[in-house]
């Protein structure tokens, strides 16, 4: 089928750009619109696109369900773990000020890390849900 060929070529071109863009949204969220959640969704959209073009099985080989499950848990743990870390350093839960000597730097580190946690969980859960839904037809 010809149009799949076209799609494949375009997918090869676009997917790296989309992933790059997801990273931009992830780390630029402090300055412009965006953040972990949006970046996570965009990242998962890149993979969904890949799965649509190359088939779910191929995509699942790259990102198996078990890995996604661990990643989803990991994101939550990173977020909550940041809170625990701030507690151990003597602050209240999620009080990033204690993460560095200077409160602003602490806030920066804290926000960066938790946004990362959000991004990881969101992208892996979205992918997981999509894979499960799309893969269900096989059964």
């Amino acid at each position: 089928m010809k149009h799949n060929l076209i799609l494949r070529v375009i997918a090869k071109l676009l997917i790296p750009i989309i992933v790059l863009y997801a990273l931009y949204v992830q780390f630029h969220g402090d300055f412009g619109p965006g953040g972990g959640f949006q970046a996570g969704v965009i990242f998962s959209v890149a993979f969904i696109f890949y799965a649509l073009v190359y088939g779910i099985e191929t995509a699942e080989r790259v990102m198996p369900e078990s890995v996604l499950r661990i990643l989803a848990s990991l994101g939550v743990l990173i977020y909550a773990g940041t809170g625990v870390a701030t507690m151990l350093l003597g602050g209240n839960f999620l009080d990033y000020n204690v993460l560095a000597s200077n409160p602003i730097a602490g806030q920066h580190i804290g926000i960066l890390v938790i946004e990362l946690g959000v991004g990881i969980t969101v992208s892996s859960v979205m992918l997981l849900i999509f894979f499960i839904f799309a893969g269900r037809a096989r059964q």
Partner: protein
Amino acid sequence: MMYTAAALAILITMGLALARALLGPTVYDRILSVNMFGTKTVLLIAVFAFLSGQTDILDIALVYALINFIGVVAVLKLIEQGNFFTSGEKDEREVESE
């Protein structure tokens, strides 16, 4: 002023596309107008970004463009194959062998 004019024109086009999406009659007409509607929304946001002087908003237009694209691919895949899980070519062979 020029942004306003562009925004108005886009709004009118969106209205026309929406009407087609509602009227149908075939599924393909609907997808066509949804796609058109999506593109126009992207443009509207882009124009609005300049209208309000906040170019950060362009990010949103970018995401729309992206989502719109993936959405169209997903819809077409679904219509052609009735599922998401196979890559197109394999499915084609399976269909033929049946």
